[in-house]
């Protein structure tokens, strides 16, 4: 990647089922202070700001009007993306690589607990003329996808249960996680179906939280006091999301986004060149589908066999979602991808405490925007 870009600071509040003690502005201010201190900068030095937020999740239209004060962005260039935070990282990278600015802040948060009717917001994303009148819960789209995904790949429900068990157990070592629990695959198999073949314990629950990330140009990062983590590649893509004709088997948005990021990072064999993966697991089977799309397995069925045999556990050959993923940390709306970045930065800086992996030098984060979308992003980071 020409004109290298680094992450030089992160502020990250523990994900929580609720956060009644702080407003979203106070939450953002707190994490901005933490990130700027970590980066060794003053807010006044930041040249551009990106926030990732969805108006319907906030309950406020034109949400970018509500973000400058608490980030130190008053009278400065700033904008809001209606995307996951990883798109915000890609945005910041482009701003810095273009030579426009040297110091950019990316923020995303979740006040999911403030949304009393989350299913209605999902319903709002479904086509109003020919899908919405059918009246089914939009999470059913995940049930539809999982069913044909298992049918076509040979991946089993038990292998999917291993994803939940692994991630929620991993979360016990992560103080940022909202839903840690010692979980066995059998516990998942005993839980009721929500949207057959999808079980209740295979669906990530929402959580509140906030992440602020500071990105800097090569020069700026080298001159600074903090330990930089380098952005080696970014990619993002959408597929055609029409429910009647979409690709239910392959997460093409993820494959295209990954190819884009790999090209920049010079990665030819992701399974060998990348040491740590944080991938979307909004629903347990999604982790496996995304790992296939990231090019880790030549045969899709291998993704199921890998998780069941422990290859993707923290001490396995290819650790996946050491943080606990969305199943263990909680689904923090637009901040979901940035929580993964926070994990990778901690790992690559060797600050991950009880879950520190000894040899991780190159790491990948991937996000998906949830049902009914086919929108995804990939970021590759490295310690050198």
């Amino acid at each position, binding site marked *: 990647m020409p004109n290298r870009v680094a992450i030089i600071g992160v502020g990250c509040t523990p994900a929580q089922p609720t956060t009644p003690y702080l407003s979203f*502005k106070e939450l953002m201010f707190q994490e901005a202070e933490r990130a700027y201190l970590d980066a060794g900068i003053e807010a006044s030095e930041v040249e551009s700001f990106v926030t990732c937020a969805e108006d319907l999740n906030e309950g406020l239209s034109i949400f970018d009007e509500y973000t400058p004060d*608490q980030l130190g962005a008053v009278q400065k260039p700033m904008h809001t993306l209606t995307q996951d935070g990883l798109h915000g990282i890609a945005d910041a990278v482009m701003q810095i690589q273009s030579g426009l600015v040297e110091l950019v802040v990316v923020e995303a948060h979740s006040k999911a607990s*403030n949304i009393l*009717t989350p299913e209605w*917001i999902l319903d709002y994303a479904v086509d*109003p003329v020919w899908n919405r009148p059918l009246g089914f819960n939009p999470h059913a789209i995940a049930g539809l996808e999982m069913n044909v995904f298992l049918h076509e790949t040979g991946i089993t429900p038990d292998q999917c249960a291993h994803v939940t068990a692994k991630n929620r157990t991993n979360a016990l070592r992560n103080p940022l996680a909202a839903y840690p629990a010692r979980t066995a695959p059998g516990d998942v198999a005993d839980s009721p179906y929500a949207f057959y073949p999808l079980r209740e314990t295979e669906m990530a629950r929402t959580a509140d939280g906030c992440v602020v990330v500071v990105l800097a140009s090569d020069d700026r990062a080298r001159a600074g006091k903090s330990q930089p983590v380098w952005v080696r590649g970014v990619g993002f893509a959408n597929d055609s999301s029409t429910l009647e004709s979409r690709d239910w088997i392959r997460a093409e948005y993820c494959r295209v986004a990954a190819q884009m990021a790999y090209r920049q990072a010079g990665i030819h064999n992701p399974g060998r060149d990348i040491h740590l993966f944080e991938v979307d697991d909004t629903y347990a089977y999604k982790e496996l589908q995304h790992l296939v799309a990231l090019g880790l397995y030549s045969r899709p069925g291998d993704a199921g066999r890998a998780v069941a045999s422990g290859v993707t556990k923290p001490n396995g050959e290819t650790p996946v979602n050491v943080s606990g993923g969305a199943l263990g940390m909680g689904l923090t709306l637009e901040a979901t991808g940035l929580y993964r970045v926070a994990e990778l930065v901690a790992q690559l800086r060797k600050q991950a405490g009880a879950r520190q992996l000894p040899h991780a030098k190159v790491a990948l984060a991937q996000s998906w925007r949830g049902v009914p979308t086919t929108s995804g992003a990939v970021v590759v980071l490295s310690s050198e």
Partner: protein
Amino acid sequence: MSGEPRTVRGTPLELADLKKGKVFTTAYVPKIQYAWDTGVAIGRYLEELKNGRLIARRCQRCQRTMVPPRMFCERCFRSTDEWVYVQDTGTVNTFSLCYVSWDVRRLKTPEIPAVIEIDGASPGMGIMHVLGKVNPKQVRVGMRVRAVWKPPPQRTGSITDILYFAPIKGKTTKVGTAKKPR
């Protein structure tokens, strides 16, 4: 080719045609609900409104007293330092006479939203409210006003615990020049 625009013959459509179902339509009423966390600053602000008082936060660095209160100073980018009660009187900074209601009805008596610079807060620091008990023709920038509160049992911890701001008779101040801490 003449210069005349071509007339395309369309299909005329009457309201009755819609009612008879000659045209397909679809309707959807979203049922989205929120309950926002007020947080520290606005939580305290609302609690004090219930008590019939206005409270502000002060930043020691820029010496501003900010209302509505906030836990951070957007100019200095630091935490604010202390709570201070301010007056429930102030000066009209700006106002509008609204002859069209929220649901687009024509109004004979206008609604009067106004920004009121609060006494005890820093110049230019005001709250958004409405004016009442005033002849619309006599509203002026710089007019001195006072909060008219709901009776205590009716207050709920809401900005509407103040019914409106009403003129303090015979007083006008030039906006931004009142003696206030800077």
